[in-house]
């Protein structure tokens, strides 16, 4: 479940992209969780047509996923289509400019144009993509073959993927356990289900298999993924038809494929790249060598990553790191020794770990450090130097500390220490416990602690709040500008305002990703 302001920010994004009606349906799903069409109509008090159309828009833009949940034992036959809002995908909409920049930098103008269309339309078939490209370049004749080539590049870089199944069937959690599973693995699986959100489960169930995901056409389209597509035709709402037959094996089938298989941007790949970029930024203070070596390692291990939030990269030998380093201009003038010494730098603190003659990137350590830095800088700016030191002392201790102990560690006057700690506690930056002791003079001790899990959630919520405020203020400034027939000098002002607010939005979104997606 998204936090309070995460939710408000998501609704705000949908409102500004698709208007109030669609936003109302989306908000209802975000607040209430998955709903059937019937309930959605009831709760939103909109007409069935309005709700259906809104859902179509949201599904088209990958913001909502339909699914069928098998009801538990007993009346297992009863299946109802439900709709769930995909919070992450909604937030991704605010980062399209970042995705576009990545495509442009890596694959160039042609790919950028195709990809832009895909973002604009949410989902397209290859036939639609080709048609769009041809009609947009009226006059100059562009061969469909060339467009297909461009598309293949996007596919090869995993920037686009096949759309998920329109209506996957979700079996109840307890039935997912194979009865023969051993105790250990059983509890492990249970735990996985508990920590996974419904949104994740639905998305996982709907996702095409890894083998299919980036494949333009396959010989046996109908066999490989047949199981998942079984229910497709039952979804009239989605309007996708993915039942295939033997015909597809021949040329004609391929043409059909082009008209049937839907493609969309693969957000996961972009988030992965942005995660890598954030990691690189975070070692920049270690110098150029560290940046080049880490970038090379990321490049070499990226294809082995199978999800975004992995804790560590695949291992690489010194030789293969060096090979990767000298592949690009910046690295070419690095000697073997320099690479080695950069690796040593990256090993202290251990952001890159050496073991058995090979090296792995400790993503978790890098992200943790970056998150700590961010929170600490808020504490410093909001509550001052002393609070900052105490917060760091507690954060590094990782357990409860008594007031006097904190004063001693930070060399702060004992009698003034509680005041500083209290302020942090009041605004949810610290956790406090009282300890009654009997007999001694001091009857009550105060113990303090940084509760990372809660605090991180709190900080993320404040970030969403800040993002919403930035966006509202920007809209307000632009609105004001439109209303008043301002003298020319105010135009300079609005340009600067826009620049400041938009660049703040981009940076803030980096921080949101750091806490939410990485």
């Amino acid at each position: 479940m998204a936090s309070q302001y995460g939710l408000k920010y998501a609704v705000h994004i949908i409102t500004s992209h698709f208007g109030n009606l669609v936003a109302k349906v989306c908000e209802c799903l975000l607040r209430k969780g998955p709903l059937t069409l019937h309930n959605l109509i009831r709760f939103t008090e909109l007409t069935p047509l309005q709700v259906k159309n809104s859902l179509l828009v949201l599904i088209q833009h990958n913001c909502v996923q339909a699914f069928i949940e098998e009801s538990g034992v007993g009346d297992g036959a009863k299946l109802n289509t439900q709709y769930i809002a995909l919070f992450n995908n909604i937030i991704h909409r605010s980062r399209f400019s970042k995705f576009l920049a990545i495509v442009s930098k890596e694959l160039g103008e042609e790919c950028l144009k195709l990809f832009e269309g895909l973002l604009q339309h949410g989902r397209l078939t290859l036939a639609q993509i080709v048609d769009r490209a041809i009609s947009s370049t009226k006059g100059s004749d562009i061969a469909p073959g060339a467009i297909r080539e461009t598309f293949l590049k996007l596919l090869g870089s995993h920037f686009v993927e096949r759309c998920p199944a329109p209506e996957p069937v979700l079996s109840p959690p307890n039935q997912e356990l194979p009865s023969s599973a051993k105790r250990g693995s059983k509890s492990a699986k249970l735990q996985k289900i508990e920590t996974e959100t419904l949104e994740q489960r639905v998305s996982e169930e709907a996702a095409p298999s890894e083998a299919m995901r980036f494949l333009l056409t396959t010989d046996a389209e109908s066999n490989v993924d047949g199981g998942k597509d079984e229910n497709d035709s039952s979804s009239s709402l989605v309007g996708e038809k993915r039942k295939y037959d033997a015909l597809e094996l021949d040329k004609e089938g391929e043409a059909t494929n082009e008209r049937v298989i839907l493609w969309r941007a693969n957000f996961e790949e972009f988030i992965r790249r942005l995660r890598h970029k954030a990691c690189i930024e975070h070692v920049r203070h270690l110098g150029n060598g560290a940046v080049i070596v880490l970038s090379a390692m990321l490049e070499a291990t990226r294809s082995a990553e199978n999800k975004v939030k992995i804790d560590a990269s695949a291992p690489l030998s010194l030789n293969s790191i060096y090979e990767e380093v000298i592949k690009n201009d910046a690295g070419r003038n690095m000697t073997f020794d320099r690479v080695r010494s950069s690796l040593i730098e990256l090993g202290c603190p251990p952001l890159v770990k050496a073991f058995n003659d090979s090296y792995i990137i400790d993503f978790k350590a890098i992200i943790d450090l970056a998150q700590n830095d961010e929170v600490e800088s808020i504490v410093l700016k909001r509550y001052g130097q002393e609070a900052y030191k105490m917060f760091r002392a507690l954060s590094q201790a990782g357990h409860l500390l008594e007031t006097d102990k904190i004063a001693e560690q930070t060399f702060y006057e004992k009698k003034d220490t509680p005041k500083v700690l209290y302020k942090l506690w009041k605004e949810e930056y610290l956790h406090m416990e009282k300890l009654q002791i009997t007999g001694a003079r001091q009857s009550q001790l105060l113990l303090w602690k940084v509760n990372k899990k809660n605090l991180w959630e709190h900080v993320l919520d404040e970030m969403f709040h800040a993002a919403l405020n930035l966006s509202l203020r920007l809209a307000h400034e632009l609105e004001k500008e439109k209303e008043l027939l301002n003298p020319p000098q105010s135009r300079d002002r609005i340009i600067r305002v826009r620049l400041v607010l938009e660049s703040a939005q981009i940076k803030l979104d980096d921080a949101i990703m750091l806490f939410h997606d990485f």
Partner: protein
Amino acid sequence: MSQLKRKRPDSNSVADSLTEHERVVYDAIRSKQEMGISQRDLKREINLLDKLASKSLKSLQDKNLVRLVPNFQSKGMKHYIAAEFNPSTEITGGAWYTDGSLDSDFIGVLKATCLKFVPNLKVATLEGFVEAVKKSRVSQVELSKKQIEELVESLVCDNELMKVKSTGIGEFASIPVGKVCYKRIDKGNRVSGTMASIPCGVCPQISICTPDGIVSPKTCVYYNTWLDF
């Protein structure tokens, strides 16, 4: 650094001339040795009338048999100790305290000395710091290893040093693997936090700020200042 030293009073002659009440008070204080006792605890312990106790204390002080010492734990409270003892560090607070107050200047100088010893991105061991402080002669009294460790650890809280474990290679070549070291953080090269750079990130009103409320981004004064071009 006030390790007060007094001449040992000629206890026999003066102590012999004490009144009965003074004797009770004196014995109670003296039995606490270098810990001394607070006025409040003393009065509770000896069970004398308030007035009598105060009077006895006064005359014991006049006779140089007991003295007042500052207690860094509770500065307002009177704390007595028999003249022949030096107050324990539990009372004075140790090297970091002068007259019961934190000696911030002294601590500041010591911290700077430690930092001077490790240039950016370099590492040092605790023993290295101990040696550096000793050589600098900043402190008149000899500081223990534990005290230097306290200093260094507080520099970690200040985000000037980072605690790392020796890997035995590179700059750690002379340090055994696994030994705790301190690495100097290069602050000049660090980007400050994102949230901290925008008004809402450090706003004291964020919890009451809503899109259409009295405090709102549209009317926000912090934004007005920020966007005042």
